[in-house]
């Protein structure tokens, strides 16, 4: 199908946009997520949407999909103004979206997920035969039929296959507009190629496609136009043929990449090993060997499902290691629960700050002191002696006061509260997983500086991230994972290409500085 991709694009290029978003503004408590953004897409075109994490891409697409209502601005579909108060309205109008977070029901089958709410009927009842056939058909079209059975429960599928189910689900709508929000985040190169072919095919069939990705390679391979968002504002829309990746980067971050990240560790910063793993593994990880020293930031890169986040969760005792040895500050330890990790003065911060980091209804103060309290006798007085103001000052928290509920803080400030929580107990082995995901650019830089200053102050930091520039910009060493193992190690300043080669299992080993 990829063979006839010399497509008749010219005909549609000048065509009317099938979908137009004008002056979209969306505010969340403490942050303007989108500020007057306009965007359009035409039938038979792939329009890439790029921007740093937190630039507003996902919010824009959630508005398009009816999941959020915009505060200002209008949506035009085929030139007619529309407004969606609920996702089903957007769907009915022919807009389908593959969201970044998985939107599948783990305890339902692939087929039931794909045709959720639109199951084929015969005499009023769900026609499981046809449901099965239609699903098989769709999976075949994606070229994944040998891996994914229509009747498998989604929870039993590996992450990459779940992503393919998401794509199949979006395709099943036969919509006019298809939005793909980072569809390749969990895919191997082979699967990415497959997807690219499919996107071209759909485009040629006249679909309007909005394609969101961090990967320039994909963008330049399939996009006709590119719109760049930054800090919730639109920087511009350009023809893909008229720009280079460097141009895009400049548009996205507004300054050269190296100015954006703090300096790497100096040799004098590095101290003794605080965290060591040897031959560690569990049901998803195997043969993990690593050392993190005081003062250094060790990055962990890898595709979704590579074991990158699972590694941190294992170290922190959430899904503990079942074999191998682990040493903290030279002492051999076993960590079977987060409480044990906390007692060893380890800290954990994830991108899911709302699910895993914060008690949203509680004030800044109680969140900051949560770990501190967990380590003290239960009936000890709640306030203790810690100066919360000092801690929040140290992370440069911007809040209306220590009594403000954290649900009303911006993402960056929420993440700072999580950090302050660990500083309160003087944790010196810090595990970060996508620490800046969903945070606006300025706050992001602030958090990066903070992480580096923590390292400087003698903390050992293990940072997993899906954001390659972040891994490259922050890490003093980079571990690359694939299939539950550490596939190689790269020195500071490795290139994206080097990382990806390891992360997709094409190469093994790595290089030293």
């Amino acid at each position: 199908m990829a063979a006839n991709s010399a497509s008749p694009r010219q005909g549609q290029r000048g065509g009317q946009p099938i979908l137009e978003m004008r002056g979209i503004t969306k505010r969340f408590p403490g942050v303007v997520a989108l500020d007057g953004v306009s965007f359009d897409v035409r039938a038979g075109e792939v329009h890439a949407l790029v921007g740093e994490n937190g630039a507003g891409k996902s919010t824009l697409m959630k508005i398009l999909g009816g999941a959020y209502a915009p505060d200002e601005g209008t949506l035009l579909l085929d030139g007619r103004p529309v407004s969606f108060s609920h996702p089903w309205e957007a769907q009915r109008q022919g807009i389908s979206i593959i969201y970044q977070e998985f939107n599948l029901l783990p305890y339902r089958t692939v087929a039931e997920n794909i045709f959720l709410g639109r199951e084929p009927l015969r005499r009023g009842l769900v026609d499981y035969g046809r449901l099965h056939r239609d699903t098989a058909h769709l999976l075949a079209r994606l070229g994944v039929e040998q891996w994914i059975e229509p009747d498998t429960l989604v929870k039993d599928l590996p992450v990459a296959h779940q992503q393919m189910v998401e794509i199949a689900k979006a395709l099943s709508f036969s919509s006019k507009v298809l939005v793909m929000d980072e569809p390749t985040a969990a895919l191997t190169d082979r699967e990415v190629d497959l997807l690219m072919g499919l996107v071209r095919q759909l485009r040629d069939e006249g679909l309007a496609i909005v394609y969101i990705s961090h990967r320039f390679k994909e963008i330049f391979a399939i996009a006709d136009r590119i719109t760049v968002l930054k800090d919730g504002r639109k920087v511009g829309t350009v023809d893909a043929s008229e720009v280079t990746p460097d141009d895009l980067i400049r548009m996205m971050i507004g300054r050269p990449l190296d100015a954006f990240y703090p300096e790497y560790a100096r040799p004098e910063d590095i101290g003794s090993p605080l965290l060591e793993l040897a031959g560690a593994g569990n049901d998803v990880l195997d043969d993990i060997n690593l050392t993190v020293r005081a003062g250094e930031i060790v990055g962990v890169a890898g595709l979704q499902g590579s074991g990158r986040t699972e590694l941190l969760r294992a170290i922190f005792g959430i899904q503990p290691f079942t074999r191998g040895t682990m040493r903290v500050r030279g002492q051999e330890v076993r960590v079977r629960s987060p409480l044990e990790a906390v007692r060893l003065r380890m800290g954990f911060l994830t991108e899911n700050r709302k699910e895993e980091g914060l008690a949203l209804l509680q004030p800044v103060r109680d969140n900051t002191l949560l770990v501190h309290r967990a380590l003290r006798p239960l009936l000890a007085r709640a306030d203790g002696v810690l100066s919360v103001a000092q801690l929040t000052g140290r992370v440069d928290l911007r809040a209306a006061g220590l009594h403000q509920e954290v649900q009303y803080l911006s993402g960056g400030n929420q993440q700072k509260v999580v950090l302050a929580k660990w500083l309160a107990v003087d944790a010196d082995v810090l595990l970060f997983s996508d620490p800046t995901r969903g945070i606006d650019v300025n706050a992001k830089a602030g958090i990066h500086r903070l992480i580096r200053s923590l390292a400087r102050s003698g903390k050992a930091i293990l940072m997993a991230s899906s954001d390659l520039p972040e891994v490259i910009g922050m890490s003093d060493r980079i571990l690359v994972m694939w299939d539950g193992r550490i596939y190689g190690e790269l020195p500071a300043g490795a290139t994206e290409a080097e990382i990806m080669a390891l992360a997709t299992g094409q190469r093994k080993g790595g290089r030293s500085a």
Partner: protein
Amino acid sequence: MVRRVPPIFVVLLAICVWISLLNPRFATVPGFMSFLMRAAPAAILAAGQLFVIVAGGFDLSVGSLITLVVLGSSMLIDGDPANTAWVIAVMFLIGIAVGVFNGAVTSWLKVPSFITTLGMLVTLKGFALLWTGGAPRGFLPNNFRVFGRNRLTGVPLLDEVPYAVIILLVVAVVATYLLHRTGWGKQLIALGDNPRAARLSGVPTAKVRILAFVASATSAVIAGILLGGFSGVSTNVGDGQELGAISAAVLGGAKLLGGRGTMPGAIAGALTLQALFTLLNLLGWPKPLRDGLQGVIIIGAVAYTAWRERRS
């Protein structure tokens, strides 16, 4: 803690003023004391229930535990005042055991507390009746009943204060301290707000939760002693108390499934329900209609809270 005055206090005050207009005796010290005395078991129970509710759970077993305490006490004491002290101690031990069981099954076997305590509601009532053969046996001597029935005399300014009111006051102060001023209380609220975050912050979730159920069960034992004292032995003394306690906590601004709730609010919620029933009684409402109105009121209170939260 919440800075502004929770609406429940305004409502409570309004109802109390209204009752006083209809029945001036209510506004006198003895009148108000006897109101507090009757509300004390429910208020204590609501205070205990709040520990579990803020942690994201329910304790439906308290009603049956009350029945067990009343029936068991009368069985064991059997009218002999010399037995009262150790029997009360045994009752507290039973309460603690029930609380530990509820909390442990919920934490370690992952049975939702609604189900765990529903099971205990059935089991404890069955056990109490099995023990006594289905009807009250023995009887409660005066030195047991004094807590729920009598008054402390010679109190300056107030003259007479029912023991139940003193106990309520002590429970209220201790419970408020525990929930709002200790690390445990704060961890409990964080656990109810976001269990995953609490666990990842090192909160010993099982221990914290088990203690909440122990607190709730202990409050049921106290309420049982007061109720048994107030009116003597009966087999259905605890029936439905659990729903009353949950309603009271919710009226007081607690959020079901956890993360929000204040002790003064929950106690005020229980007092408000009691005041409302007193008011409706004075207005001549028949009992079934009073219960019916309670239904409307708790829906209204929760809907109002939800609406206010969405708006802000």
